[in-house]
């Protein structure tokens, strides 16, 4: 193992610890916000924003997406498109098939 490689891994480990602390803090924040009993729309929005930040930290640093090859990012981008389409389906039903009218 070269010394450069060792330094590189040490840098990664420091980032992992920082992300870990951030995730712990954000978990506490999520629970704390829920204690305010905000209206549903606000509560859902804030909870999803915090969860998305936490999820992004896990994906970018623990799953190394921040330095991953373009092919994997392309696969995931396509997945995100279909995932959003899937979540949008219930919205379409709520509007009672607006495309028909």
């Amino acid at each position: 193992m070269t010394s450069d490689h060792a330094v590189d891994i040490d840098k990664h480990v420091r980032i992992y610890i920082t992300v870990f602390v951030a995730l712990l803090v954000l978990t506490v924040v999520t629970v704390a916000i829920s204690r305010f009993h905000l209206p549903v729309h606000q509560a859902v929005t804030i909870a999803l924003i915090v969860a998305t930040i936490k999820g992004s930290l896990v994906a970018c640093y623990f799953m190394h997406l921040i330095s991953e090859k373009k092919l994997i990012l392309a696969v995931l981008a396509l997945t995100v498109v279909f995932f959003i389409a899937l979540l949008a389906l219930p919205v379409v039903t709520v509007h009672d098939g607006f495309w028909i009218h």
Partner: protein
Amino acid sequence: MEIPYTVELRRDTGLNNGKIGIWLFLASEVMLFGALFASYILIRTGAPVWPRGDTILNVPLATFNTLVLISSSVTMVMAWASLMRRRLGTFRIYMAATILLGFVFLVVKYFEYSHKFETGLFPSTNNFLALYFTLTGLHMLHVFGGMCVNAYFLGPGSKLWETNPEWFTNRVENAGLFWHFVDLVWIFLFPTLYLL
């Protein structure tokens, strides 16, 4: 016959086969949980009333479990970093910690489930509980599956280290990607079910 592209990178993808394989699998997993989240949205928005999760579920226990799972993600990535530093002994400690934390998560879920059943709350009781048990049950299966894979790499699978350390490191990285995905799913499940 030797498995191709376990360590060396393919010229067309720029990746080893294991890496692209695990990411394609995780993409399919996103769609699996996506379908269940879509069901949740559909059922919740269609219901005239919906209970707040914290009136039925145990938030302190779930918060504890969230911290446990986040900690297990850190020990998992540290296990991989130990292999990158060529330290098998340290890898074993972190991997054992990851499995132990996964076990703690399942034990806590066992107590949560038991309490629900004792108080007459079953998946058939209402739509909220049906979604709760389906989503958390599927997630628990993933935790158990990840623990089995991790236990293999802690035990018999680690023999590969002696003959091909790079391949073993790649396999542990891929197992880690699955484990982090399981953590990521819980990060969204926790507020969705327990806090909203």
